[in-house]
């Protein structure tokens, strides 16, 4: 599964994207955030306030209880500031 990070999530994790094998214990987007946060300091910093992070699955906005099975791409990013 492809994971993408934008804005300060990209800076804190140190990567704009990566491909992972989804662990069997991780079912939802919220659980994926917890799993990623446990990786190292940078990821912990990126995901320290998961409630502020927005999630997109296959480029559509979803909530953190979204089930990830069959997902090709998950993106994590801060609230948007376009316009």
């Amino acid at each position: 599964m492809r994971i993408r990070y934008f804005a300060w999530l990209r800076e804190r994790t140190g990567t704009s994207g990566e491909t992972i094998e989804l662990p069997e214990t991780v079912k939802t987007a919220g659980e994926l955030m917890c799993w990623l946060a446990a990786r190292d300091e940078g990821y912990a910093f990126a995901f320290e306030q998961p409630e502020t992070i927005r999630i997109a699955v296959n480029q559509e906005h979803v909530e953190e209880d979204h089930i990830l099975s069959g997902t090709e791409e998950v993106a994590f990013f801060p609230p948007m500031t376009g316009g």
Partner: protein
Amino acid sequence: MSNRTTTGFTVRVQAENFDVLAETEILTKGHKDVGAVVTFTGLCRDEGGTLEALELEHYPGMAEAQISKFARQAVERWPLTGLTIIHRFGKIPPGDNIVLVIATSSHRRAAFEASDFLMDFLKTQAPFWKKEHLREASEGTWVKTRAIDDADAARWHDEKSNNINIP
């Protein structure tokens, strides 16, 4: 149910600047049914001379898809004759254009409202992030969201038709 056919729209996400007059002419020249043109251009402010540039990051693919989703909602909700939305990304200096919405219609209300609606959703739902680079600071800072922007977007909820969904 309405029998009118919905109008097409143009959505572009690009690094280059855009020409407001040229884009407007595309929607008006030879279109004798147009009675109203509303253009909104968002520009980069210099924040009292402190800002060197804004850097706009975006999610390629999703940015176009999200803007197109709102454009589709706008042409379904208002009787527009034309609609163009352009959003830039990359480093933008003060005074430069950032975003353009042009809505045309037979009568003014539809064009005014559709442009207002689209800007509210571009601000809160299109995957763009602004970073401010100040003259006096070595590192940029990410622009924070403003509660007023969410409140503005919430104005457009239509419970009867339920056609706007903010996740």
